[in-house]
């Protein structure tokens, strides 16, 4: 074996320009063995796979698409780091790459050769995978593989990642790849070298092909100032209709599955703390998170289809004009829009924003977008504010969405002018060819995103659910003396009046016990903090509980006021009970001032632990999650205070 030969178990870095079929090729080579992690301290995803060949094992690392190794971008920095051995995906030991799989696109070979030259200069054993040869032929470009191989000093393999047999052939070559002294051959002038190699190895026919004509027409339509916006609005409406509408079916199934699981566990285990913890803590808590899985999987499946069709790059230009005044690029739009379903996939989708500062600004303000978890709270409060007036309810409901968007955009502007100050990166984007997207790839992407969501957010919310259940259940106290008295009276009264008294006693009991739990006691202590925005002890407990997840607010209020756990807003009785609920001093909880104040607070406050966990991971540090929590909740408190005190000062009851 000569010096520089790749031996078994060695690291192979896969590099190439964006949109050259690199990830499709990686998926074909890796099969099911791939793992997704991050490059440490970055939002950049790392796909890694261990594969076996007849000659031994290889570890493949799929690097982000780059235009050059020396460019001042995070992607180029990562590629450089992996090649040199200073960076490794999380969970892997950093070591210089033993071999490079260079993926070159035959339709843009000249440009690809500049990157090839940079990679070859490093002297690492290299194999070239030449993709898109069919497309190149259709465009009148012929590539002589033998000449190319001779000039590059390494093996060149033509691959069709979607159809062709590439597996062992390419992997076998990678295990045997050796340096052949190309380092010296590239020389100092990279572009001159690339042009020389291209002139020798490729021949291109000039003129526009039919593909170009179709692409021209589609580009004109999709980036047109008016038509482009209409197409974009239509595509996004379809996308979110699918997420909100189609996802409801699997969401209902998941809901039913977890309800059934709760029932089975309740039947199987004897009554007691373990049964309660599993049913009310683990199953209810995990179920409340997993229910969002269909929306997340569907969102990433559809986004992947749109991205690979070539449309998304065009749409980024349409929306860039609208977001630029707020310091955000067009790439931020899809993440921000996704945030209206759930902040978690939105934050994960922000990986598509190329500039690190703009990406961070997007992540930080994204939870201002009203997610589906806020909907039950909006429904409750707008109904309490405008009983029997659906028109005004709808207006207030839409206003909540508007307030979230305005707060998010203005916060982005402030962040970009202060902590994330820096030049706006002007939009320059390669527009890939339009093509039929791969269903398999989209499914794989969606499954990977879904799994990440389940693993990361699911574990956090599972732990939080157990903690919240424990705090809301313990210490347990005996029955309320007032409830005991009522029950004694009820026992002497027959008929409906007796039943009413018993129900009233149950409610008193639940409220009494809730007050004495750890959460209830914390509510009592913290209440002075929330008093200036109109919250009494019960509302304070509701607010505190909702810091784990917003949707908990409605059920927590219902539990405290009704003493029952099945809070169903469709039931007029529950709404009526909440509308007439009283504070400890007998005054109503939901006055007009309190309801408006709570609405503003819930639109703006950061009350979602999984989002904070994902922000910390995606932004590269807990400090960013804390900043998000502090800024959003501080702003929510300040505006709620202004609203509450202004309405009270105006004397509105």
């Amino acid at each position: 074996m000569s010096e520089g030969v790749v031996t078994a178990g060695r690291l192979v870095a896969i590099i190439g320009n964006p949109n050259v079929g690199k990830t499709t090729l990686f998926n074909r080579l890796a099969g099911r063995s791939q793992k997704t992690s991050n490059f440490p301290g970055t939002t950049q995803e790392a796909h890694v796979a261990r594969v076996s060949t007849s000659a031994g094992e290889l570890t493949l690392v799929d690097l982000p698409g780059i235009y050059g190794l020396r460019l001042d971008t995070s992607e180029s920095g990562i590629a450089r780091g992996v090649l040199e051995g200073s960076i490794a995906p999380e969970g892997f030991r950093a070591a210089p790459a033993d071999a490079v799989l260079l993926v070159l696109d035959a339709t843009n070979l000249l440009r690809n050769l500049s990157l090839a030259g940079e990679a070859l200069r490093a002297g690492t054993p290299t194999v070239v995978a030449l993709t898109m040869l069919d497309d190149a032929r259709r465009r009148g470009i012929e590539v002589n593989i033998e000449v190319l191989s001779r000039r590059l000093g390494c093996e060149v393999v033509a691959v069709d990642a979607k159809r062709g047999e590439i597996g062992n052939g390419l992997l076998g070559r990678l295990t045997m790849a050796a340096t052949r002294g190309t380092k010296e051959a590239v020389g100092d002038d990279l572009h001159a070298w690339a042009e020389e190699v291209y002139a020798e190895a490729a021949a291109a026919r000039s003129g526009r092909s039919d593909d170009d004509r179709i692409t021209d027409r589609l580009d004109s339509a999709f980036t047109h100032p008016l038509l482009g916006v209409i197409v974009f609005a239509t595509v996004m409406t379809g996308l979110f209709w699918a997420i909100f509408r189609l996802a409801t079916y699997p969401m209902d199934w998941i809901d039913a599955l977890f309800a059934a699981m709760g029932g089975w566990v309740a039947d199987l285990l004897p009554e007691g703390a373990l049964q309660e913890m599993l049913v009310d803590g683990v199953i209810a808590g995990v179920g409340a998170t997993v229910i969002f899985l269909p929306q997340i999987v569907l969102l990433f499946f559809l986004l992947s289809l749109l991205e690979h069709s070539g449309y998304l790059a065009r749409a980024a230009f349409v929306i860039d004009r609208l977001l630029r005044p707020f310091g955000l690029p067009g790439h931020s739009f899809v993440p921000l829009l996704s945030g209206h379903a759930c902040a978690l996939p939105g934050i994960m989708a922000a990986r598509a924003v190329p500039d690190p500062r703009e990406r961070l600004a997007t992540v930080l303000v994204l939870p201002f977008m009203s997610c589906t978890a806020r909907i039950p709270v909006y429904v409750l409060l707008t109904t309490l504010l405008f009983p029997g007036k659906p028109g005004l309810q709808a207006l207030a409901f839409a206003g909540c969405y508007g307030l979230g968007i305005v707060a998010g955009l203005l916060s982005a502007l402030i962040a970009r002018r202060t902590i994330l100050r820096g030049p706006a990166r002007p939009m320059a984007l390669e527009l890939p060819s339009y093509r039929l997207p791969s269903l398999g790839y989209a499914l794989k992407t969606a499954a990977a995103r879904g799994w990440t969501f389940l693993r990361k957010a699911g574990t956090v919310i599972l732990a939080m659910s157990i903690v919240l259940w424990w705090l809301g259940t313990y210490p347990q106290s005996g029955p309320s003396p007032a409830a005991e008295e009522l029950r004694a009276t009820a026992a002497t009264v027959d008929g409906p009046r007796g039943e009413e008294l018993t129900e009233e006693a149950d409610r008193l009991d639940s409220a009494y016990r809730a007050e004495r739990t750890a959460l209830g006691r914390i509510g009592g202590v913290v209440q002075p903090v929330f008093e200036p925005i109109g919250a009494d002890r019960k509302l304070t407990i509701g607010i505190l509980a909702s810091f784990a997840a917003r949707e908990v607010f409605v059920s927590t209020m219902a539990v405290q006021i009704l003493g029952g756990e099945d809070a169903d807003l469709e039931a007029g009785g529950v709404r009526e009970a909440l509308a007439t609920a009283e504070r400890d001093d007998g005054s109503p909880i939901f006055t007009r001032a309190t309801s408006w104040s709570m609405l503003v607070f819930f639109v703006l406050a950061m009350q979602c632990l999984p989002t904070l966990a994902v922000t910390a991971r995606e932004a590269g540090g807990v400090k960013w999650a804390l900043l998000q929590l502090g800024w959003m909740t501080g702003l929510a408190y300040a505006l709620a205070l202004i609203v509450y005190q202004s309405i009270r000062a105006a004397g509105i009851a």
Partner: protein
Amino acid sequence: MTEHVEIKPVPVPLTRMTRGQRGVLREATIEGSDGEMLVAMGLRPNCRLRVCRSGQTCIVAVETGCGGGCRIGLSRHLADRVMVEPIAAGR
């Protein structure tokens, strides 16, 4: 004796080019990493371009420079700084 003087077209900003027009990139006055990125994407001096769309979003097909016909979208801010020498129709 008549002297033939060839009048070379004066480079104009890319934003002044119309749809379908071809030109040769002469200079891009974009400094720093953005300029380096455009070169790496294929927008190099002397490459031939075809304007697919002009206006706020400028789309150019890079006919030489990429080796095929990659398309690059540029915001007006960048397109204003890319100087192109128009090629007469039919050449």
